């Protein structure tokens, strides 16, 4: 199982990837949507964890483009925001929607749920 983490906060996303790796989950990370699209070209990721709010390409848009490249890919949204529209859109278009800060255990269980 391979995971792609996308968040504009490098510190956050890198630490998260490392923690997942420590738990034996293969995770790549990047800090922008464009880079993520490039990385996903081979369609090697089973699941993508995306930040809802990112400069230029936001989470929802990125999810749509990734789906085009790789239709079977699953998604989990992360957000620091709690607005209704955000929540509703996020929950509708992804397997899960988590509000930061998250517990790594919660994330792993959501990932397992999504890929099961």
């Amino acid at each position: 199982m391979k995971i792609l983490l996308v968040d504009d906060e490098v510190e956050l996303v890198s630490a998260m990837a490392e923690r997942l790796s420590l738990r034996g989950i293969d995770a790549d990370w990047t800090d922008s949507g464009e880079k993520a699209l490039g990385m996903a070209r081979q369609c090697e990721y089973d699941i993508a964890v995306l930040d809802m709010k990112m400069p230029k390409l936001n989470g929802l848009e990125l999810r749509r483009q990734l789906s085009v490249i790789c239709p079977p890919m699953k998604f989990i949204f992360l957000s620091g925001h709690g607005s209704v529209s955000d929540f509703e859109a996020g929950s509708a278009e992804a397997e899960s929607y988590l509000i930061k800060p998250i517990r790594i255990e919660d994330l792993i269980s959501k990932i397992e749920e999504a890929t099961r």
Partner: protein
Amino acid sequence: MKPGDVMSILNKVKPQFWDTDTSTGPKSLFNYRRTWRLAIMLLAVVALVPLLIMTFIDYNVTRNSIESDSLLRTARTTSNTRRTIASFLNERDNALNFLVNYLGVKSLSNPKNLTSILDSMKNSFGGFVDIGLIDGQGQQVAYIGPYELLGRNYSEQEWFRKTLELGSYTSGVFLGFRGEPHLIIAQRVTDKKTGMNYVLRATLDTGQFNTILSSLDLPNEGEAFVVDRKGILQTPSKWHGKLLSEVDLPIPGYSEKTSVQQLTGKNNVDYTVGYAYIHDSPFIVLVIKKNRVLMKPWETIRIELFWMLAISIALILVVIVGVATYMVDKIYIADQIRARTLHQMEHTNRMASIGRLAAGVAHEINNPLAIINEKAGLINDLFYYKKEYAHDRRLQANINSIIASVERCGKITKRLLSFARHIDVREESIRFKNLAEEVIGFLQKEAEYRSIVIKMDIPEDLPKFVSDRGKLQQIFLNLVNNAFQAMNDGGKLSISAHKKTDKTLVFAVEDDGCGIPEADKKRIFDPFFSTKKKTGGTGLGLSITYGLIQELGGTMTVDSQVGKGTTFTITMPLNATPREANDNENTTG
């Protein structure tokens, strides 16, 4: 009736606006009593002044017309009487004149002739008592009559001299030798042969005079009589003096025509006096009427007028006060509703702003918090997976404490976010237990500091209900906040809920605080009513809460005892069809 009863009746009829506190809000807007007084005063002036002026004019016109009418009638009576008396005297004067010219001295001095003359005059004219001829020296040379007057000398008498001088004379009434009231008419006769002057004199009794005067139809206590120019009564009077004594009224000066005067007699009685001087005689006809009697019809009209005025004024005032009270009450109620709506809108907007601000802050904090969380988690993981520091329990404990703190921060920001989110949401299915816990969550710390015990009595099977979560949150937040302010440290707050009927839920927020005095209870939901003004209360909290509950289709009642505590009870429909809320809420999303 006891004074307490009066007060309670007054309280019942007292309009709603009466007790409005004018110390809050814009003064001109809230001084309903002044508006009320002004309205009554203006309406009363506008309505009553024309009425009073009209009544005053009518009063004077009626009075003048009655007065002038009575003057006119008096004048007419006087004039008629004068004419009658003048013609009475004239007739007899002319009769003598005729005798003098027709018969001459010789024939007149014959007693036989004189007797037949007196007889025919008595028969045809009436009023003649005797007749006599007096020579130039005053000696009566012929006399026919009931008295022995032949040979009497009249040379010293005034009437004798005046007759010789003027040719004709009418005397005033006097008693004379006979003790009977009578008057004399006399004519000068010149003997054509000798050129000597004689006087033909006749005596008239006053009986016919009296008959003329007493036949006049005069109102009560009115009378007519004749006086001479000195004011000596010539005919009898009932009220104004004895015969041949001076009349008790001032005699007006000479006037050619009949005139009428208002006089004040003794005892300050007012009279209307018509008087007329009779030409070529010493007589004045007086017709006297008492003003009080004359004005009797006026009295009746005046009383009627007064009652009409009094009843009209009373009626107008009652209507004015009623209308003014009704209108000002309506304005008051409209103002109250407007103020409540306005402040609710303002409050909603403010809450939305606070929500947006909270959401913004929460979001901004969440991002660095997430980094701290991940970094600390990573360190913890490293300890755990690499085993290098696994033995260092203190380091691990510190890390765990950091992670725990971050989690706490996360909870706070999530709560803030959820609060902000609910401000936007309109309708959703609500579990009251969750909502109550959320609300208490905001005040948990304060409750702990003040050792306030919060008891929740919410049954697990309480059905969910559809409502606006944000508004419900505000309602309960306001009520719990109020309860906190009313309680001392160590108080007890209880929130309970139960299903009342199939369609309604009942919630209660109960505290054991200071309570609400009976007098304030009616007004606690009014905008700007506050007992904490000095400490910065706006008096809007409960008013807004009340408005929100109404918007959600619910009702709120209050039950309170001073010193024991207060219970706010809210009844909410299970499936609300909320009233249309303000549109500008839509812009807050």
